[in-house]
């Protein structure tokens, strides 16, 4: 791997997870305050993640198996904030009964 590719790939991977965090935070804030604009910002972060996945898949020297993995986790990231939120909500509601 050339040093430029090394640097770019690793930065993309770090940013990918970071955007995942931002998505999680914004989505959760949006849901807590029922604010569509925050939720929307969350989805924008997720779109950024998908873009990065695309960049990694097309532009990085990672082996194809890792690229496949990145593509799949790109999809999985999309579900985590809403799924976690729903799960949290459901355990809170069970508790109220």
């Amino acid at each position, binding site marked *: *791997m*050339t*040093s430029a590719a*090394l*640097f770019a*790939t*690793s*930065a993309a*991977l*770090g940013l*990918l*997870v*970071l955007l*995942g*965090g931002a998505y*999680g*935070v914004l*989505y*959760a*804030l949006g*849901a*807590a*305050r029922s604010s569509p604009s925050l939720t929307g910002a969350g989805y924008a972060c997720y779109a950024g993640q998908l873009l990065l996945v695309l960049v990694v898949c097309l532009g990085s*020297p*990672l*082996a194809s*198996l*890792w690229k496949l*993995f990145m593509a799949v*986790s790109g999809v*999985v*990231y999309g579900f*985590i*904030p809403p799924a*976690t*939120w729903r*799960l*949290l909500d459901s*355990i*809170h509601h*069970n*508790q109220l009964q």
Partner: protein
Amino acid sequence: MYRSQKLALRYFIAAITLFGVMIAAGLLSALYYIDPALLYNVFDFQMAKILHIDTLIIWLLMGFIGAVYWFLPKELGREVVGIWVAELLFYVFCSAVAVVAVVFVVVQYGGSNEFSMWFINQGRKYVEAPRWAAVGVVAVVLTFVFNVTATAWQARRITGVLGVLILDLVPLAVLYLDAFPKITNMSHDLYWWWWLVHMWVEATWEVLIGCLMAWSLMELMGTSRRIVETWLYIEVMLVLGTGILGLGHHYFWIGTPQYWLSIGGFFSALEPLPLLGMVVHAVYDAGTHHMKTTNRPAFYWVLAEAFGNFIGAGVFGFMMTLPQINLYSHGTQWTVSHGHFAFWGAYACGVIAIMYLVLQRTRSAEHFDSRAWKWGFGLLNLGLVGMVGGLLIAGITQAIYERAEGGSTLQAFVAASEHPWFRSAMYARFIFGIVFALGYFALVYDLLAIGRRAAVAAPTQAAPA
């Protein structure tokens, strides 16, 4: 207050003191990178660094142990069984740490014989303490496990959090036996050594802090037990599901088979996902409880724990965990950058949060707030982020110039270390280290002072013990 809880306070005092020693040793270690002639042949880098990382492990362990001794009697509504042994062992523990520290400073290292291993320095990272002291740690931890299980047994009561905790403490203690052997084959030595290091920080400790955070959330925000426990079970399953085989990210290059490249890469790349769940959870709690907490310092430190764990372990870990990248980042300041961020986020912030929580109870303060805690919080986190940023730059410089381009020879190592980016990063790390140290003083001042004035102003409240 239960005796067990008084013991907890003593553990916290010892932990905070060692935290200070750790910072001093860290600043010294960092100075060698700036002035390599410092104390040359008198007290060299390796000894300062040993003090730094060994005190790190010990103060966090003391924080954890203290936290459990605090929550346990509350959880079970009774005094901890065999508390006098625990009280006695606390002093044994502290004296042992002091003796080991003195030996490290004065004797430093011994000859090539078993005597050195037993009484001076074992020379294995994080577990350099000589074997006699390691026996002491085992004794303390076993007593601790005994206290917890026997108390639950006598109380004829087990809760979800407590059950998870007990199941977790057993492997945690067993793994520490890894601190003893002297294995000739370096590949085998490192194979087992990583069971200790990785399985502690990315499995058993992660579960332990999960239990402690569960108790904390119940105290801090009055979240109900059902919720906290359901969440804990899910977290534990995810953390262990990814973390156990995530161990493989340390088996890429130590003479173990090539299949670890795929296994380690795959499972450790999944490790950030549960951490993301925790971040969503933190926001959920903060949002639904409308930040109605009476203990803002503890609340902010809990938030710092969730975010720090995610960024330090999740983001910084993921940046270098795929084998194709790790080939170049492995064993550089990049690793140090991740190590600092992850330890700080995942564990140090959690322990500090619990200390604030406990202080509010002991000082029965209604108005539990101050200016100093904000200074401590701000400076410590700013200092840490600055250090970690500097180290990341230094690490990337090494990955590029020493590894990818230079080919890892001595000459390449020197070239990267003399590179202006690397050198400036070392200055930056030191300066932010000072900021961090200032934050520590603010923290200590605040821990001593917070809530006291309120207690005086409201003398009708139960007097703090």
